Every structure is written in C-alpha cells, then in structure tokens.
C-alpha cells in the first residue's frame, strides 16, 4: 500500500512531543492571562478615572497595543532588549512580557466597559444601605462585573492561546515548532507528513479552544436571561 504519511504521528514519541509542545503554548497563554487579569483589573479601574489626562494615557496605551501586531511587539522586546538594553531574555520570558502587555490592555478595556455598564444606582443603593466604598465594590460591584466579564475573558484567553503560535519566530519550542521539527526530520521518508502533523495541531488547538469558546457562549446566554 502507498505510504499515507499517517504513521509519522506514531513514530518514536512524536505524538507525545506534540502534546508537550502544546503544553508549552498553553503554559505561556495561561501565565500571560493570569498576569493580564490581575493587571487588567487595576488598569480597567484606572480607565474609569474622571481625570482627562489619565484617560488620555490609558487610551494611548490601549490603541498602541491594538495597532501594533503582536509579532512586532515580540521582536521589539526579544531583539530590542538584547541589542539596546543588553538583557538576554529567553523566548518564553519575552513572550510572557509581550502577551501580558497586550492582555492587560485588552483586559483593562473589558473591565472598563463592564464597570461602566453597571448602573450608578447600584452604587447608590449600596451606599444608602450603609456600605462604604470598599464594601460596595466587594459585595455589589465586583461580583456583577466578574459575571459580565466571564464570557469576554474566555474569548480573550482563546485568542491568547492561538496567538502563542507566534513565539516560534523567537525560538520558543512550542507545538508548531515541534511539528516543523517532525516534518523536517522526515522530509524524505514521509513527504506527506506536513498534512498529518498540521492536521493534528489544528485538532489540538481546537480541542483546547473550543471548550473555552463554548463556555463563553453558554455563559453569555445564561447571563442574558
């Protein structure tokens, strides 16, 4: 029978290597997301400031991050730090820095819009019941904000998981890079490897991201009614 190429997946520990690669991607995404959530919460609160100057700088940061492709940011941090600051960041560290920088901005904007969507009367009925500022935020505003945030946070997380594939380009060995290695190593023995390897990577990304986006959709629906 003609060599189909599917056996490439089961040669040696190829399949396991792909999973380990995926784990690297996920780890980068989850660590970045963790910092993005913490910093984004703070940034979001700062964004609701009434001070015009503060708002201007928040806006500037957000728009800069949105306009710049993440790849450019990655190169800027990874190569820029080495060349101009004489700091040799590992690819992973540079990736976490960049994705946190990006995620904080996006998360902050989500937090800002969630906070602003809560009617001012919710604060006032809290105050009228004798709560102080901290109590109002802790018991009334933040629980509602988090509910409103959950769906869009899930979406941000899936975007982050997908965007981690860029780190190949600064030498981090994650799932896409492992795939390339497998394909390159068997270029002559299994010419059709690319289809199978990338196919599996596709399914892996799907398996990770789909539950998140499904959960986001369900939460969104649940919170709507």
């Amino acid at each position: 029978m003609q060599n189909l190429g599917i056996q490439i997946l089961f040669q040696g520990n190829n399949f396991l290597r792909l999973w380990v690669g995926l784990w690297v991607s996920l780890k980068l995404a989850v660590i970045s997301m963790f910092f993005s959530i913490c910093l984004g919460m703070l940034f979001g609160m700062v964004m609701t400031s009434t001070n015009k100057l503060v708002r201007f700088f928040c806006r500037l940061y957000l728009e800069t991050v949105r306009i710049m492709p993440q790849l450019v940011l990655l190169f800027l941090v990874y190569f820029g730090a080495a060349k101009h600051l004489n700091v040799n960041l590992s690819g992973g560290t540079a990736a976490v820095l960049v994705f946190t920088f990006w995620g904080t901005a996006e998360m902050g904007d989500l937090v800002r819009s969630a906070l602003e969507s809560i009617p001012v009367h919710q604060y006032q009925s809290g105050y009228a019941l004798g709560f102080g500022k901290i109590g109002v935020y802790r018991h009334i505003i933040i629980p509602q904000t988090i509910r409103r945030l959950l769906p869009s946070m899930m979406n941000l997380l899936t975007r982050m998981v997908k965007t981690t594939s860029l780190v190949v380009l600064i030498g981090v060995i994650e799932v896409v890079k492992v795939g390339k290695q497998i394909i390159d190593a068997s270029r002559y023995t299994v010419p059709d490897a690319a289809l199978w390897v990338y196919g599996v990577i596709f399914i892996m990304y799907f398996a990770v991201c789909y539950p998140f986006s499904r959960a986001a959709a369900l939460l969104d629906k649940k919170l709507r009614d």
Partner: protein
Amino acid sequence: MNVEEILKTEQLNKSYENGLKVLNDITFSLKKGEVVVIIGPSGCGKSTFLRCLNMLEPVDSGTIRFKDRVIDRANKDVYELRQKIGMVFQSYDLFPHLTILDNILLAPVKVQKRERSEVAKEAEDLLKRVGLSDKTNVYPRQLSGGQKQRVAIVRALMMHPEILLLDEITAALDPEMVREVLQVVLELAREGMTMVIVTHEMEFARAVADRVLFMDQGVVVEEGSPEEFFNSPQTERAKQFLNMFHYEAR
C-alpha cells in the same frame, strides 16, 4: 433642639455645575413619627433634596442634623448614619446577582454584622407581611416591578432605620402595581414610621401625609396639612400645579 425633632436642615444650598440652583435655602425639620410628602414639578429639586438628606449628594452650604449630631459628609460616621436613614429609589435597584433573601440580608450581615440566622427569620417575617414569602430564593429578574419595589422596601427596613426616604418609588411602575406598593407604605405610616416621601401620586399623598411640602425651582413654596394644601392652596404656583391633575369633562 426640640426632643421630638429627628432630622433638621438649615439653609441648604446646592447648585449644579451649569449654575442651576437646585436647592435654595431649604430649612426643614422632621418630627419622629411624622410623614412628610414632597411634591412639585419635575426638576424642582425634590429628589435632590432627598438624596442630600442621607448625603448621597453633597450640599454647597447649610447643615443637616440627625437628632443632635451635625452630619458631615466627609466624616466617617456618614456610613453609620445612612443605616439610620433608609432609602428606596425609583428604579428599585435590587442587586441582580443575589437572590431576594440575599439582597435583603446582605447589609444586615455585612454592615451591621448581625447573625445571619437571626436576620433571616426577621426577613422572612417581613417578606410575609408584604406578601412575598414564596419569593425568597428567586432572583430579582423573576419578579414584577411592584414585587421588586416591595422587596426594596423590606431591604431598607431590615436595617432598622429611624427614617425612611422614598424617592418616587412608584414612578417606574405600571398603574396596576402602584397600589400594592403604596399599601405597604400606608401600613408603615400607620405603625408610626417616620418618612419623607417624594411622589406624583396625589391621592396617595393626601392619604399618607401629615404634612405636605410643595417645591418649585429649588424653593419650598408652600407647606401645610394635606387638607389645607389640596383643598385650598395658597400660592398661584401650587394652584397651577394641582390643576394639572384635573381634567374637565366635555
């Protein structure tokens, strides 16, 4: 200060940023057990006045006294005083993420640090009185406007306030739900609750009030018993205002 006086304001003044004067030298006093109804055209400052009474909004000048304490908005004891002056708003503002029971228990448990089991008992009794004892575990979105507003009243009562401020609590309700809410307020009045009520329901005002205040453009234009005010208003502006509620038959 008279022992009976529970709340007193002296020369309250407040302007908005655009220069519009919402409160103009308002001097007012409230006795224990008294029900004062404030009426007047929209934008006359009556809601603002109410919100200044429990310091949700700052005043530009003037003093507010609760019993013999002068209330200072910058002071920490504002939080304590707000517990003694309960407030119910037009838009009910129940907390959507909490069940009815949790809405009611939140402040007594978290602010007043009372035992949850003890307050839960009291909450259930109050809910029963307003006819909502089967609603303890549902969420606010599952209630009608009138039901939500009754819950909001219970929530305010749970803090054991000495004064209750009601800010147009039926203005957002469908007509058939107005009565079920006002009935609760009438009962509270009969039991001797001290209240300041802003409303557009004239029949209700007449029934519940010990004293009526008519405000227009930030000034108390006229003040008197409901009989005096509704039957023989003294000022031209009050007459005009009351006439808006009458329709001539063809």
